[in-house]
């Protein structure tokens, strides 16, 4: 028989359980298997009631984020062999309410995301007949890194500030706001300023930096937030010196 590894998985059914518990499964330890493969093995062969989110299996969709041995990871990009001889403990993402087994409730994040207006805002939209909004490769490069976010929420699971203060807008939402602020086609900076410069916006961040550490797409949300703190401070000084002037 092939080598096995113990997979310890959080189980929770809101109808049945008061608190989550851990269930252990033995799964084949294959060189090419990621943690998600092990979860699917359990679901297909051992216990079909095990619930978890996944879709693309290739680090693009951002659905399969879970805690693997206490660290937020995309389970489709985390190899079992790295945890040999085991056990591998798989838990739902930290800092979120658990709906069932490994599935967390992310409505809070979705609300925060739309609040920071992560889309291109134009003062006046030009008609389709006038063509696209053009952008040079250099202009693209200024925000490209921040646009790689796949909303997997590993950064929220890693952020101790979000864990303590659920009102904090959080790393991904703030980084995505900055992605649009830095887009040369965007004219929505002042609209976003009011939202981002509130206490629960950028000022909640204490620059722990864990968000950047765990990001599977190398987005650097911590950098985006510090960058925006400087912008917001410049705007604050501007409004102090020129209270009559418009926001830039």
């Amino acid at each position: 028989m092939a080598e096995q590894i113990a997979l310890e998985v959080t189980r929770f059914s809101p109808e049945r359980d008061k608190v989550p518990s851990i269930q252990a499964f033995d799964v084949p330890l294959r060189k090419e298997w990621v943690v998600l493969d092990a979860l699917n093995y359990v679901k297909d062969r051992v216990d079909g009631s095990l619930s978890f989110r996944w879709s693309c299996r290739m680090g693009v969709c951002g659905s399969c984020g879970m805690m693997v041995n206490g660290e937020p990871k995309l389970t489709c990009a985390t190899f079992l062999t790295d945890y040999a001889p085991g056990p591998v403990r798989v838990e739902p993402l930290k800092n979120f309410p658990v709906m069932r087994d490994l599935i967390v409730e992310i409505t809070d994040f979705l609300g925060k995301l739309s609040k920071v207006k992560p889309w291109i805002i134009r003062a006046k939209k030009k008609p389709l007949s006038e063509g696209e909004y053009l952008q040079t490769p250099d202009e693209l490069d200024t925000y490209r890194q921040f646009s790689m976010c796949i909303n997997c929420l590993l950064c929220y699971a890693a952020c101790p500030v979000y864990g303590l203060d659920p009102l904090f807008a959080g790393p991904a939402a703030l980084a995505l706001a900055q992605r649009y602020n830095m887009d040369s086609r965007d004219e929505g900076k002042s609209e976003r300023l009011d939202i981002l410069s509130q206490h629960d916006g950028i000022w909640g961040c204490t620059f722990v930096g864990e968000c950047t550490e765990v990001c599977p797409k190398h987005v650097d949300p911590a950098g985006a937030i510090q960058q925006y703190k400087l912008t917001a401070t410049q705007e604050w000084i501007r409004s102090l010196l020129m209270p009559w002037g418009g926001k830039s």
Partner: protein
Amino acid sequence: MTKRSNEPLLWLLFSVGGVVAALLIPVHLFLFGIAFPLGWLNAPSYDALLALARGPAGRVYLLVFCILPLFHWAHRFRYTLYDGLQIKHLNELVNTFCYGGAIVGAIVATYLVVRIP
């Protein structure tokens, strides 16, 4: 602005204070704590240092050196208390203690620097 926040001012003081603390304090510690006592460098005389501190540039330097890191401390310690001890509900008390402490320190520093004979 929906809620006028003074966070930018506090953060600015925190940042500037951090830069001052990180750049200048190690230099002073190295010079006065290690290099002069061990005789690696010739220590300036008391009179020469007093003359340096007495001039307007010297006084401004001492004020910046003493006051800005205090505000850096205040901001950092505020969040340490908030998150470390999880006493965010006592924020008025914490803010008064931290920033009030920095202001008191700033007043004491100014008094001392102004009184350099």
